[in-house]
């Protein structure tokens, strides 16, 4: 297990290196000068040169890249151009909001997908199955930027139950979490249904019921557990999509997370902040995928740590 973990952690390095390099190049290729955006039009040329030197933007791009890479292992992601605060501090202020939203939306997805998927598999070919399939297709087809305002219209404006926007672990969290979790719930519902149907065809289910175990117990205690392995893998892979989706959801609901920060950083050409945000998002995605693999091995002892 330790060796496996070590190997996996080693493999994170090239992935993160690749992501950081591509983002560094892309953000520097974008037209737009951070110095001009920061200083505005009233600044004098000498002042711009001064700031360019101060921000070390006057150095060759390779040298800037090397400085950034050298800082990463020490946790030094530089200083934000726009707020002049350390990038790590900026991200640390926003990351709890994004993690809260991502975790809640995944919880919403699982809470919806498990019972619906099981129901669809158990009642294959019946109205409940078709209804769940239709709901899943509909949910997958609606983009977040449309679903969010629709939910606001229904639950906030028409029914007056929930706030339109804001930040908090209670009522303000409900609509953003549903918006972000709906697509994932739809995907997981279809996966639970498909993998459970696969398991239900296997002989151990017949054997379990033949020994007198109730059908419901055989499904919930045995078949569902085995069916969950690919579902958990899909959940891990979806985490990246949830983080990406949070960029739009956070903007709609004025949620002060890392997604909104990233958008503002790109608008201001705040290179260190963009790089920092992407690095943190990449690391989170890789970490969640690692945790997913470990969880899969726990769920199915046939999976070995290799």
């Amino acid at each position, binding site marked *: 297990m330790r060796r496996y973990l070590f190997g996996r952690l080693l493999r994170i390095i090239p992935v993160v290196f690749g992501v950081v390099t591509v983002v560094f190049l892309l953000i520097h290729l974008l037209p737009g000068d951070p110095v001009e955006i920061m200083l505005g039009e*009233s*600044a004098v040329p000498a002042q711009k040169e001064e700031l360019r030197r101060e921000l070390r933007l006057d150095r060759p791009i390779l040298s800037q890249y090397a400085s950034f890479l050298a800082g990463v292992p020490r946790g030094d992601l530089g200083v934000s151009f726009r707020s002049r605060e350390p990038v790590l501090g900026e991200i640390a202020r926003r990351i709890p909001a994004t993690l809260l939203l991502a975790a809640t939306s995944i919880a919403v997805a699982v809470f919806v997908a498990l019972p619906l998927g099981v129901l669809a598999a158990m009642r294959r070919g019946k109205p409940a199955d078709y209804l769940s399939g239709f709901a899943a297709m509909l949910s997958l087809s609606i983009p977040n930027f449309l679903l969010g305002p629709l939910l606001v219209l229904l639950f906030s404006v028409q029914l007056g139950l929930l706030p339109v926007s804001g*930040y908090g672990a209670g009522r303000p969290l409900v609509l953003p979490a549903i918006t972000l979790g709906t697509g994932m719930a739809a995907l997981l519902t279809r996966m639970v249904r498909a993998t459970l149907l696969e398991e239900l065809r296997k002989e151990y289910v017949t054997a379990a019921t033949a020994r007198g175990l109730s*059908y419901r117990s055989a499904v919930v205690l045995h078949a569902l557990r085995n069916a969950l392995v690919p579902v958990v893998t899909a959940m891990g892979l979806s985490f990246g999509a949830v983080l990406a989706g949070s960029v739009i959801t956070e903007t709609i609901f004025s949620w002060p997370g890392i997604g909104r920060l990233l958008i503002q950083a790109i608008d201001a050409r705040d290179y260190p902040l963009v790089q920092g945000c992407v690095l943190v998002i990449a690391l989170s995605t890789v970490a969640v995928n690692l945790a997913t693999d470990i969880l899969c091995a726990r769920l199915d002892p046939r999976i070995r740590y290799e």
Partner: protein
Amino acid sequence: MRSLRVRLPPWIFLPIGLIAGWGCAQKLPIDEGRMVIALPGAPVNIDPRVATDAYGEQILQMTHASLVGRDGAGDPLPDLAQRWESPDPLTYIFHLRPGLRFHDGRPLTSVDVRYTFTWILDAANRSPHRGLYRHVAAIETPDPRTVVFRLSEPFAPFLSTMVRGIVPAGSPARGYAPPVGAGPYKIDDLSPDGEAVLSAYDGYYGGPPAIRAATVKFVPDSNVRFLELKMGSVNFVLNGVDPDLLPAAERTGRLVVEEGPGGNVTYLGFNLRDRALSDARVRRAIALAIDRETIVRTIWKGRADLVSSILPPGSWAHDPDLPAVPFDPARARRLLDEAGFPDPDGDGPLPRLRLTYKTSQNEVRRRVATVIQEQLRQVGISIEIQSLEWGTFFSDIKKGTFQIYSLTWVGISDPDIFHHAFHSRSGPPDGANRGGYSDAEVDRLTEAARREPSREKRREMYWRLQRILARDLPVFPLWAGRNLLVRDRRLTGFPLTPDESYASVRAMRIVPDPVTPSTGGPR
């Protein structure tokens, strides 16, 4: 296969019921005496010495007081300075009000004023406003209530640069922790990207504001801003609701829409280095071919005023008798013929000339671009629209890589803008003469006007200047969007000014609703 019967346990309805009950029991902020203002974005910084973004400036107008304020026409008003005099064009003497104090109780004296501007002028602090005060040679404080600014050369717009919040001496630049001010509201709490919680400052020299508590929410999505207004969780949005949604806002009964003249002028910029656009006849033909009235009526729902100068009509230096460019496609065609761009195939599809029109990704601007494209097609000009992400778009404009672009001049407070925008030596990146316009008389007038202390003489120079620009059309001023305020009908007392100032928020009050009594009642 056996079926699984699913029965929902009764407890599952408990959270739904709780949320419903909670929702119904919630009072609106205005019922509890709190006003909620929504801004379309979060401020990057709330420090008057470094803030450049509009949202930071708008919060500062509520929390920080300046030496002088500004009225709707751009004229200076007393603020912290009770009065001022200028014995010669190089000296300005400000006399502070007695008994001024900051939010934390410290007295506000001339030392704080000197500190604020010295801090901005110190190169080590990298303030983006440093260039604005480059004419300041020395700041003297003969006594606690007198500040003397000495300039290195005459600079007539100097007073307009004194609209800058004063901070206590010794205030470090602390990122998100804003320095205290002496404005009508103080900041109790600020969450980046979330909201700023304000409360009335009892020691404000003009008396504490009637509304004791205010929240400024940062809501980037325009539809969400409208829905918040509709629900009552936001009560005040200035220029943040799409014109399309205004009728719906009026229908709610809860909301009132007010409009007033605006100071932000949208214009078409031409690249005078371009072979076709260097000819004033081509630029005039383009202007004649654009039916601005139809665009204002259909896209802006009538909520914009046609203009003939980039200086807003409310400004003291605006020339009211400037000739307006009419919609006259027949004359546009004649001018294009004269300029050497005849129609190659009569009514056929071939254009007289092809041009590229750059704009941002703003939805309204894109719609405007599409209509202009169609109107110019009618006179034989083929337009390719390039709608670019803001950073890319603005970078292209500053580099001069464009033929036609559309932008809006925001927050023009002094006619010295003409020097910045049209003087031949004001090219990018340090000036805004992006099209490369050059006229000796314009250069002379802009230089003389910024040195001229007499308001009347300056006005005459700017009127002459505006007539030259109306003749040459280096840019084509289109319209000034009207300021649109959507507010809860119980919030009253906010005078709309062309410069979108939030300074008058302090004059607002919450009045009882005569039609639908609120649950809590105003405080």
